């Protein structure tokens, strides 16, 4: 168990290293001279050259990567080309908005678990059939379309909910969270419920459930201890891995609803060729995803006793 944890963390670190390097190499191909952008067109060639020296822009790639990692370990992701502020603080400013959205999406997605379980237990019934059709439809539709239709209906036609910005004050924030969360979250409720349904159906057919029934253990206890305990860990892993997709969709939703956050940040940075910010944000996103995936993997292993070392 400990061996696996160490191994898994090691792999995670390796992945981050590889991803960063790959990203760094890619960014090198972005057209445009950073010195030009930072100092403006009126700067003298000597000033630009001095800047380039300072930022190691003339050194071969592997040296640049080295300095980048050095800075990374010290928490320095470079400096925003336009505003001269450190990238780390810019990200730290915008991150909470994105974080709130992601967390509320996860909470909403968790509602898929009871839906899927109920559908599995009452398989073939009307709830199962209806929820099946609805889930499949919702999973399929791209979040952007869901978001747009939600705006059409709730913001424009009915005028119930706001569609722009994040809001100030607790209730306003919640109100502003509703539509964006639904835009991403509806897909996820559908996905989670399908997953849980398939998992529970499979476990319900297994021998240990039949044995439990043969001993007269009441159904709800069986559901809790014999079915869900076995079926859920797999769902946890999938959720963890899906964080990447949630983050991805989050970007679009932030733009659509004009919300502040990491998504808007990277969008603006790409448009303005602000490559330190692009680098920094993508890196932050990657690290976040790797951490989430690793955690869910480890959680899965912890929950399944079969992976623990055998004593005898």
């Amino acid at each position, binding site marked *: 168990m400990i061996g696996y944890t160490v191994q898994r963390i090691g*792999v995670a670190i*390796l*992945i*981050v290293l*590889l*991803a960063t390097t*790959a*990203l760094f190499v*890619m*960014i090198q*191909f*972005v057209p445009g001279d950073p010195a030009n952008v930072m100092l403006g067109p009126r700067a003298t060639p000597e000033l630009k050259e001095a800047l380039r020296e300072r930022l190691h822009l003339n050194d071969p790639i592997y040296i640049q990567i080295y300095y980048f990692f050095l800075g990374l370990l010290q928490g320095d992701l470079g400096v925003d080309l336009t505003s001269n502020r450190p990238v780390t603080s810019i990200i730290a400013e915008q991150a909470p908005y994105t974080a709130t959205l992601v967390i509320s999406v996860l909470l909403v997605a968790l509602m898929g678990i009871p839906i899927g379980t109920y559908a599995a237990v009452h398989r073939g019934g009307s709830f199962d059939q209806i929820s099946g*059709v609805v889930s*499949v*439809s919702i*999973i*399929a*539709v*791209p*979040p*952007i*379309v869901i978001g*747009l*239709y939600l*705006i*059409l209906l709730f913001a*424009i*036609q009915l005028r119930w909910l706001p569609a722009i910005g994040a809001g100030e004050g607790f209730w306003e924030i919640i109100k502003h969270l509703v539509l964006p969360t639904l835009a991403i979250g509806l897909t996820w409720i559908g996905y989670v419920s399908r997953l849980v349904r*398939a998992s529970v*159906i*499979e476990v319900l057919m297994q021998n240990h459930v039949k044995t439990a029934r043969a001993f007269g253990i009441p159904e709800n206890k069986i559901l809790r201890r014999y079915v869900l305990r076995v079926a859920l860990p797999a769902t946890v892993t999938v959720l963890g*891995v899906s964080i*990447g*997709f949630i*983050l*991805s*969709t989050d*970007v*679009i939703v932030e*733009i*659509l609803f004009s919300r502040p956050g990491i*998504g808007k940040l*990277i*969008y603006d940075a*790409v448009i303005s*060729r602000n490559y330190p910010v*692009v680098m920094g*944000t*993508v890196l932050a*996103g*990657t690290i976040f*995803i*790797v951490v989430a*995936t690793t955690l869910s993997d480890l959680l899965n292993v912890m929950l399944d006793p079969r992976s623990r070392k055998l004593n005898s």
Partner: protein
Amino acid sequence: MTTITVKPLTKFARILQIIRELCSSPLVVFSLVIVLLFFAVGITADYIAPYDPIKIDIRNKLSGPSWDHWLGTDQLGRDVLSRLIVGTKIALYLAVTSVSIALIIGIVLGMIAAFTNQWIDWALLLVFDTVKSFPGIMFALTIVALFGPSVNSIVVVIVFSTFPSYARLVRTQVMSLRNSEFIEAQRAMGSSLPRILRLHILPNVIGPVLIVASMDVPLVIGVEAGLSFLGLGVRPPTPSWGSILNDGFLFIRNTPWIVFAAGLPLILTTVAFTSLGESLRDILDPKLRK
């Protein structure tokens, strides 16, 4: 356990049986129709569009649905219906190209991973995991920043984001097949590796992978919609479903029907492909039956 005698079925009869089972659900029949329509419209788009999709007619801008323009016109007076029809062509091109390329790369890499030694397999797995760790859209934005917005940028993005899952799937399937008894029997008979791959492994692996791939078509369409919506996808004035959504969004308060109309083909095709894929998977997977 009762023994129920099964009458032998030829391959043809088996396919007919699958189709019959598929057609038992109205949703699936509907999806099949939509998918076929998608292909048909995509291929014949240029011929069946009533108007030239990029012809500008400012006098007629933002007019609602009418007999002349069934879905109205956009802010430059272009016929929305024609633009949607031609947009189908782009969606079809994207779906077919990106999924095919990703499939080929995924299958090849997956097979290599399954058959080489522990080190190379490990290295390949690392590559797959790393690629999967990039936040999709962020990576897409980066690619667009590098190569500029275009249809082929989207293809690159999709291929990059989807091949790891195909590769992993193929790898797992092949590894489990490799240890199965009938493959052992083949080896005991002296069958060569290429022969085993061709005749016994590939046919058993392609099925599940194809189904997963067909369910990625909605993803492709969604990514294009998203990117074009951000203005980073298809270059104007080429119409694509996403760019029409974008145009419509700018004027959503006065002319909501553009967004509504552009959303329809998106919803229809994505739901159709997904339910078709799911039904196929349910039919072919004995565990989920009954």
